[in-house]
């Protein structure tokens, strides 16, 4: 589904992604973790070309993302992207946020799009907030609207960039619950997150990154109990002892 | 034909330069007087004297709510009725000074009110008088937010000065108007007029932008 072959990216002199090789199969749930600055956010932002790569091949759903000539609209329609800071459109209701892309990118007629939108909002537990504006919603609710917004395009892949990092602790679980359900239903997902409980429960594999490189890839139980790399061990120690 | 007009235009350049001098004179004098009056009025407007604040506020509203052209006509045509005979040039300077002062009043008042209240509270607590607070604490900080819009106002002043041509002051615009009667190539003549104003205003606009960036950097360093 997603294939990184020797992907490299630089910001000026800084080598933010270094020789990345990774294959993600359909239905897999990949959790990407690592210290800050490791390039994990950059990694998933490259998948829908929010960030371009300079070297290597990145193939998503059979289409070449690294090729400048590729029309990204089609690819982006198949990928739902959830941001750390939600990025909901403040001038539209929850329903508005969720239906704009299906109507304008997939050209679904308004009635149908709204039906679909209501369905997705109900799915994330917000059926009574459909006509609310983002400013009237809590952080956890906003992020769930963002997830419904991603799902309304009926994508093949869902990407999450630190979805719970900006939330107050008591709201984290409501978002993770939705993500967990999605994983159990077989959605192909890649999530950058520090929520290790979530990783242990639903991840097929954990990708540990540091300084732009993939250091270790292993099933969650293996990684959390028996990390192979020195840096992996150090990282786990630092997050478990704070 | 076009070539002939172009030559005539070149020969009119000294006349245009006189116009530039006139524009600079009218704008310059108004700038000086307007700034002085504007600062004083602005300080009062941001002060404690409520009646004074209301009166100045009403004056500012009056000036902002009416076109400058009408204001010039009022000053030039009506003042003689109450005994003040004015030539075009002094009337122009008075009107432009009045206009500029009213806008600067708001800029200065806004800058003063933007200084955090805590500053004045600290100054009062340490025993400084109202005047001392203003002089040593409030104004130095207010200047930072006053300077960029102030320079912006000077650009507006130069542009508004073109309106005084309506009462016969021979500034750049009036020179253009007089010239185009002889040289009926409106594009060329007013193209030159535009260029002359551009030469004055464009650097000032950039100065205002530059100041805005400088001022923000300085305050974050604090």
């Amino acid at each position, binding site marked *: 589904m997603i294939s990184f072959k020797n992907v490299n990216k630089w910001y000026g002199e800084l080598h933010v992604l270094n020789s990345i090789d990774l294959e993600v199969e359909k239905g897999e749930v990949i959790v990407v973790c690592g210290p800050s600055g490791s390039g994990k956010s950059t990694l998933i932002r490259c998948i829908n070309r929010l960030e371009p790569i300079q070297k290597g091949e990145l193939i998503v759903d059979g289409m070449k993302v690294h090729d400048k000539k590729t029309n990204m*609209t089609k690819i982006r329609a198949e990928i739902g992207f959830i941001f750390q800071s939600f*990025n*909901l459109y403040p001038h539209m209701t929850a329903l508005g946020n969720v239906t704009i892309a299906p109507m304008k990118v997939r050209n679904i007629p308004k009635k149908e799009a709204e039906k679909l939108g209501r369905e997705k909002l109900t799915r994330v537990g917000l059926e009574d907030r459909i006509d609310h504006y983002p400013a009237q919603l809590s952080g956890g609710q906003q992020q769930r609207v963002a997830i419904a917004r991603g799902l309304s395009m009926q994508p093949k892949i869902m990407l999450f960039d630190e979805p719970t990092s900006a939330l107050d602790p008591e709201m984290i679980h409501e978002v993770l619950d939705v993500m967990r359900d999605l994983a159990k239903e077989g959605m192909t997902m890649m999530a950058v997150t520090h929520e290790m409980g979530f990783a242990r429960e639903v991840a097929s594999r954990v990708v540990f990154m540091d300084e732009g490189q993939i250091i270790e890839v292993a099933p969650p139980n293996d990684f959390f109990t028996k990390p192979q790399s020195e840096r992996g061990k150090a990282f786990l120690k630092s997050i478990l002892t704070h | 034909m076009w070539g002939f007009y172009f030559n005539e235009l070149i020969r009119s350049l000294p006349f245009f330069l006189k116009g530039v001098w006139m524009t600079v004179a009218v704008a310059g004098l108004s700038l000086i007087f307007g700034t002085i009056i504007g600062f004083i009025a602005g300080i009062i407007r941001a002060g404690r004297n409520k009646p004074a604040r209301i009166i100045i506020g009403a004056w500012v509203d009056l000036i902002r709510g009416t*076109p400058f052209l009408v204001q010039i006509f009022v000053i030039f045509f009506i003042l003689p009725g109450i005994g003040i005979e004015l030539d075009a040039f002094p009337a122009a300077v008075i009107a432009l000074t009045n206009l500029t002062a009213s806008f600067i009043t708001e800029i200065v008042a806004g800058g003063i009110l933007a200084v955090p209240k805590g500053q004045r509270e600290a100054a009062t607590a340490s025993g400084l008088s109202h005047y001392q607070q203003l002089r040593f604490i409030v104004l130095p900080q207010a200047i930072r937010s006053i300077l960029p819009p102030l320079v912006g106002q000077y650009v507006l002043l130069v542009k508004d000065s073109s309106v005084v*041509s309506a009462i016969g002051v021979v500034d750049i615009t009036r020179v253009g108007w007089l010239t185009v009667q002889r040289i009926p190539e409106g594009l060329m003549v007013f193209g030159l007029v535009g260029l002359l*104003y*551009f030469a004055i205003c464009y650097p000032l606009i950039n100065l205002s932008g530059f100041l805005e960036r400088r001022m923000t950097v300085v305050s974050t360093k604090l």
Partner: protein
Amino acid sequence: MLEGFNFRIILEYMPLYMQCFLATLWLSGLSLFGAVVVGIIACAMRLSQSRILRGIAGVYIESIRSTPLLAQLYFFYFGLPSMGIMLPEWVTGVIALTLNSGAYYAEIIRSGIKAIDFGQIEAGIASGLSYFQRMRYIILPQALGNTIRPMLGQAIILVKDSSLLSLISIMELTRAGQVLTSERFTPAEGFLTTAAFYLIIYYMLKAFSGWSEKRLIFREAH
């Protein structure tokens, strides 16, 4: 003069004033509409990927901002005929007002767009919306909502600027004052009445600005 303030003359000229009041409203309104359209287009050009479009918009905006409206008005009034284009004065006036305010609207909208959190634009990109779709549904609605106050401020300026149209013989409010003054030698009655009408428009627009800010109050998430 003040004792002899002749209300009877004003009453006599009231039909003329009313007609000219409507003319001012109509000319300003038309130009306002045109200016917002021009402003949106110029702003979109200014922010586009194409260097050529950016350049054209940039030249347009900087030329307008660095030159006085009166010079621009005369440029069209004298320049268009010299190119063989003969237009009724009011059309020339509307063109000048539209192009002038259009440049300022472009800048206002641009600052409104800059104030939008970039993350939402990324969300738009990520869901596959094109540049135009992002502009139309996400960016412009918010930019226009953010900038209601400066937009209405520019509208007030435009109404005042329309007074300059009197100098190219268009019958609007200021010209009404000139007519009364020249026919009856009563500049006070003439221009103060004109000023009063402008003040009516000014206060109406100010009230509208306050009302619309409350209604369309821009809801920011968080």
